[in-house]
């Protein structure tokens, strides 16, 4: 019974975390871009005169999307056309499952790992789900019966391949450092201290891999500066034939993928749920002081730290999205194959050499 309750709680937490954050990102995107550009941003949607900083706009968007005509072109493949947005959202949603959002929760004498699914190949699972997400996009391009949509789907597939290769190669360094494919083990490994005071977060031990992973990860979310699959402002993208909530689901999938990539980056490079110098029984500061904390406070601090780091990563990704202009198709391909991929191979070689030298 307790097993079931804790498992259901973990799944609910992850589901709510990803879905709510994904929904909130439309608001974050509007407001953050506005503040970066000296504007105010969408603030007109109101209920009984209350505007609460435009927070009703996601709600208004949802109502608009749900009540719009759900149009399907005559030449479209009926089944695949409907399936495609669901595939896109589904894989973006489930990808977060094996990312740990806290250490173990102790109830009585039982211990539960705080992640929705405990997998010893969790890192591969996340990438598998992220890569499968592109099938929804290709399906949408193909099933629309529209050449422009098909071309958009092709661009998405090409971008995804060049990005996934770099993602996969850049995390090999992380796996080599920690010697495990289990996300929970990788996060635990980042709790070590270097030189007695510096937390061994991935950004410290694998700085090159961090930059490569973040770049490729942003490419995997199909957002600016890598948005040539959709290119909403001039080239026509894979969802050109979609309307209503199906269109909304593609937009949502992009936001969910942003959350997933932010979660991945946090888990692999920012120490996941690690708070600096916080161990299972409290803080152990490098200058010798200790602060003992009860177990539940430690767990709350860890979950809070994870959420905060994810939000920080989302902020950075939004900053990238609203700062850099879009890459041309050939530029993105060149960046993926001639920039990120060789650099991640170099990172593997360097990591191996360093590990050999320090004899780990």
């Amino acid at each position: 019974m307790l097993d079931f309750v804790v498992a259901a709680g973990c799944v609910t937490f992850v589901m709510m975390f990803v879905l709510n954050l994904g929904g909130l990102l439309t608001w974050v995107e509007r407001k953050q871009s506005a503040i970066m550009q000296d504007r105010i941003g969408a603030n007109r949607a109101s209920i009984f005169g209350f505007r609460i900083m435009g927070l009703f706009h996601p709600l208004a968007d949802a109502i608009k999307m749900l009540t719009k005509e759900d149009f399907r072109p005559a030449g479209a493949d009926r089944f695949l056309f409907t399936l495609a947005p669901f595939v896109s959202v589904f894989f973006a949603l489930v990808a977060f499952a094996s990312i740990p959002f806290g250490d173990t929760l102790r109830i009585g004498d039982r211990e539960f790992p705080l992640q929705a699914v405990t997998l010893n190949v969790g890192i591969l699972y996340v990438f598998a789900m992220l890569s499968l997400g592109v099938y929804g996009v290709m399906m949408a391009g193909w099933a629309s019966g529209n050449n422009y949509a098909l071309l958009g789907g092709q661009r998405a597939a090409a971008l995804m391949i060049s990005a996934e290769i770099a993602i996969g190669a850049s995390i090999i360094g992380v796996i080599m450092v920690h010697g495990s494919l289990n996300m929970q083990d990788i996060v635990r490994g980042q709790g070590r201290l270097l030189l007695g005071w510096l937390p061994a977060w991935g950004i410290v031990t694998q700085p090159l891999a961090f930059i490569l992973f973040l770049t490729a990860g942003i490419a995997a979310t199909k957002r600016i500066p890598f948005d040539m699959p959709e290119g909403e402002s001039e080239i026509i993208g894979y969802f050109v034939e979609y309307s209503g909530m199906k269109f909304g689901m593609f937009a949502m999938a992009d936001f969910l993928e942003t959350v997933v990539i932010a979660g991945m980056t946090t888990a692999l490079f920012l120490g996941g749920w690690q708070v600096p110098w916080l161990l299972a029984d409290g803080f152990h500061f490098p200058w010798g002081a200790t602060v003992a904390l009860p177990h539940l406070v430690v767990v709350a601090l860890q979950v809070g730290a994870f959420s905060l780091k994810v939000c920080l990563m989302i902020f950075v990704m939004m900053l990238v999205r609203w700062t850099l202009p879009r890459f041309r198709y050939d530029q993105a391909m060149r960046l993926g194959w001639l920039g990120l991929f060789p650099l991640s191979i170099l990172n593997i070689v360097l990591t191996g050499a360093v590990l050999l030298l320090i004899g780990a």
Partner: protein
Amino acid sequence: MRLGQRLYLVEAVQGMLLTAGHFFRNMGAHLARALGSRTARGAVTIQYPEERRAYSPRLRSLHRLVRREDGSPRCVACMMCETVCPARCIYIVATEHPNPEIEKVPERFDIDLGKCVFCGYCVEACPEDAIRMDTGILEFSSYSRLGMIYTKEMLLSLEPVGPDGRPTSPVPIPADRTV
């Protein structure tokens, strides 16, 4: 290009520092405003219907007909404005004025604002200074073409713009609108 530019990363980070600088500066101003500061401004936006900027005094806005002291129009129906109007949006029907010292008075003075190009030639041409474009009213719209035709009575009821650059008289409601 220099090597730093070719690598792109340095330039990208510099760009992001610039935008992030704007973000945090504006966010600080927004916070100061929320905490009660009157002077901090985190955005250059003027929230239009509630917040308005003062119009320039030489702005050509909705026309008005100037009244004499007894309330009758100063216009003598000389047809100068109707003649000079490049859009031909003015329609005047003249009639006798009860005062023998004044030759004529408009019986009808309609301006079709759907046609008007706001060139201000009518104001320039008027020998009596009877028509002016200084009401400061810019928001007149209608659901029909008929609703864009403003009659003599409507134009006579308008007042000049206030010293703060804001309209002093309400926008006349055309016959086809109820609100």
